[in-house]
């Protein structure tokens, strides 16, 4: 979208072409949208800062507006005009100033944004896969097309974690390993789907912002809690409707009548006997092996985790609900005269509670954080004294962004950062045959700070001199998932 002002010659009103309404706007007034205004003959956005704050406070995500033309988009007005590095090109040899060193005025302070695309040999992605299904043992190798590209790392609550890429796979192995790793990292970072296989585990299709597909089955939901937590949450809703509930979970399986939540509701013992290792009353570890069946275990018949009912306590006619932590699997059973559970049709009120468990499980997603370290050569494109840039970032005088998206800069030495790839414009990543990834990175600081850290002052150009650039922010397009 072009938001260059177009003076129509008739007085000092301007015509806004931000949308097809094409308002004529008088000086000091705003258009029909209340978003664009005429400030001294220049078309400005009235609410960029507010819009940004509102969007962020609503949990929204922001990416720069993508414009057309040779200059591929990349301006965020937040609140100042902001140029991102995508398509900026990169520096080689190192001492050459970065492709764009741009100055703009914010609150009377000259701001400098050094815009470059970094070549990252030390880079990778951290992948969070929302699933309780077993993907593979910790430290197992993760492969693409048979080549090792990373490994399974420690899991998080409700999620399995992978650490992919890194200099070892990119340049330390065979040529093919490096190429495959580079391609996988670039595709994941550009939000494309990549199929990963894990030694001794599952095959999983990962795409940032989309649900994982584990062994060909699309994951729908994260569990609401472990089996024990699920008992605690729903005990009251089950009381009086069923005698016993087992919530099957790979981590902690919960049993209603033995659980503290059941005791507080005076739910009587049912004589149930669980396999596995009892942790505390009503909570069992290792009722089965991990797998892709019920509640992240390997079972397909839930009765296989039960021992015989205790004839001293159990009564024929006792009702039993078995359900997984996501509510995806459930069965209803009644004890016969021999105290054997026999499957029956589930009563509607129990079906409702199973659906309630499902409803409380959040949509499962894959999330991809790109992580990289800005090396000396990249920093030399910014300043002739690279370490000062590092110090400036640590002192919070210089702000680092990647494709306009906020980054987390890891404490300690160097500039090692992480960024959510879904907050970046599409197609932000490229590669060089080294192999290494090319990612946008921007450093923003005041002009005086830039001079003080040895900036390439001769190359600073005012923002207005960058022609054919758009200024707008837009929220992420239709997320596809997560409704």
């Amino acid at each position: 979208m072009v938001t260059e002002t177009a003076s129509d010659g008739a007085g000092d009103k301007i015509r806004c072409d931000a949308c097809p309404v094409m308002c004529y706007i008088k000086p000091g007034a705003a258009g029909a949208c209340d978003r664009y205004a005429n400030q001294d003959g220049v078309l400005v956005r009235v609410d960029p800062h507010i819009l940004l704050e509102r969007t962020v406070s609503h949990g929204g995500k922001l990416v720069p507006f993508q414009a057309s033309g040779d200059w591929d988009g990349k301006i965020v007005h937040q609140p100042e005009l902001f140029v991102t590095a995508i398509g900026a090109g990169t520096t080689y040899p190192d001492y050459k100033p970065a492709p764009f060193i741009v100055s703009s005025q914010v609150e009377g302070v000259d701001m400098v944004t050094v815009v470059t695309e970094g070549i990252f040999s030390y880079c990778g992605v951290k992948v969070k896969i929302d699933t309780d299904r077993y993907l593979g043992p910790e430290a197992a190798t993760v492969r693409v097309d048979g080549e090792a590209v990373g490994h399974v790392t420690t899991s998080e609550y409700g999620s399995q974690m992978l650490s992919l890429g890194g200099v070892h796979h990119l340049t330390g192995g065979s040529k093919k390993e490096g190429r495959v790793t580079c391609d996988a990292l670039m595709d994941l970072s550009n939000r494309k789907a990549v199929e990963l296989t894990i030694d001794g585990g599952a095959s999983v299709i990962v795409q940032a912002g989309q649900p994982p597909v584990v062994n060909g089955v699309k994951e729908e939901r994260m569990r609401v809690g472990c089996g024990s937590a699920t008992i605690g949450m729903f005990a009251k809703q089950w009381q009086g409707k069923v005698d016993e509930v087992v919530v099957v979970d790979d981590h902690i399986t919960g049993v209603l009548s033995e659980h503290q939540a059941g005791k507080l509701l005076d739910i009587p013992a049912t004589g149930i006997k669980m396999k596995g290792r009892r942790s505390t009353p009503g909570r069992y570890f290792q009722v089965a092996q991990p797998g892709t069946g019920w509640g992240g275990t390997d079972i397909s018949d839930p009765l296989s985790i039960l021992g015989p009912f205790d004839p001293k306590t159990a009564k024929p006619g006792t009702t039993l609900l078995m359900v997984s932590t996501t509510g995806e699997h459930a069965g209803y059973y009644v004890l016969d005269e021999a105290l054997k559970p026999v499957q029956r049709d589930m009563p509607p009120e129990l079906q409702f509670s199973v659906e309630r468990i499902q409803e409380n499980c959040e949509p499962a997603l894959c999330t991809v954080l790109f992580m990289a370290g800005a090396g000396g050569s990249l920093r030399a494109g910014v300043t002739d004294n690279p370490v000062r840039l590092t110090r400036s970032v640590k002192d919070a005088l210089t702000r680092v962004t990647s494709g306009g998206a906020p980054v987390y800069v890891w404490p300690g030495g160097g500039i090692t950062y992480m960024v959510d790839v879904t907050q970046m414009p599409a197609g932000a990543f490229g590669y060089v045959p080294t192999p290494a990834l090319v990612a946008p990175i921007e450093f923003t600081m005041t002009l005086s700070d830039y001079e003080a850290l040895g900036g390439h002052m001769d190359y600073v150009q005012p923002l207005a001199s960058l022609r054919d650039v758009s200024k707008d922010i837009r929220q992420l397009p239709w997320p596809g998932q997560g409704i």
Partner: protein
Amino acid sequence: MSRQPQIALLPDRRLHLQDGPIDLIIGAEGAEADIRAAYQAAAERFTGLLDELCSELSELRKAADQDRCVVNGVVARRMHAAVAPFAAEMFITPMAAVAGAVAEEILGAMRGAATLARAYVNNGGDIALHLEDAATFTVGLMDRPDAAGVMRRITLHAADAVRGVATSGRHGRSFSLGIADAVTVLAASAAQADAAATVIANAVDLPGHSAVVRRPACELQPDNDLGHRLVTCDVGALSETDMATALAAGEHCAQALLSDGRIEGAVLQLHGAIRAVGARLIEIVRPSRLRPAAA
């Protein structure tokens, strides 16, 4: 180069659509798959809708003819239909119903794509409603949004004829010829409510009163559909008598529309005074200060 609307899902599962001056907040209740289908349909219908309207913008900014509709777009025709009944008595353009007509169009797309228990499309205060069975929709009316004030509440039921709620007044995005702070209208459709709210808000007036500052609309917005007509810029202190006179004029207008069956009810507000037209329960909720919605 194609201009895409902003499409975002708010964390509370409402959908936010924005394109140029159109800003919609959409809610839907029903089965998960239906909500998804409805939101998808809303986003698809919304894409390009502004261009559709703008292709006939110059006609839509002209005074409506009560007998003849010269515009072709489905939304444009709905705008015309909503204002045409007023056109014999006054100057009115189809733009008086644009917000409501757009809200209705998007709601229609959602209803066509999914079975929903309840849904709404809120276009900057002009709201199109879908209510089934036991569903209700609660409208809060704030007398002083800027300060501590009294919140009043109207609850709409599926059995009511109301499927549109619109508010007009001198503080909104569009200009008003009257002095009402807010006139909220309940009607069978959002476009009808929108047009009627504009008309009633214009009727709440004190012609020639010295405390009312007016300027030609074209001086404020060169291409505004109201042209040289004087629009209200400021309202100074008013006596009790002045307020009663202005509100009575608005009430008279609203009462006539109610008798004709063109609206289902209206609430008029001016300087903290409030008048309701149409038998409808208005509850006083609590003295409260508007708080920002919890994140």
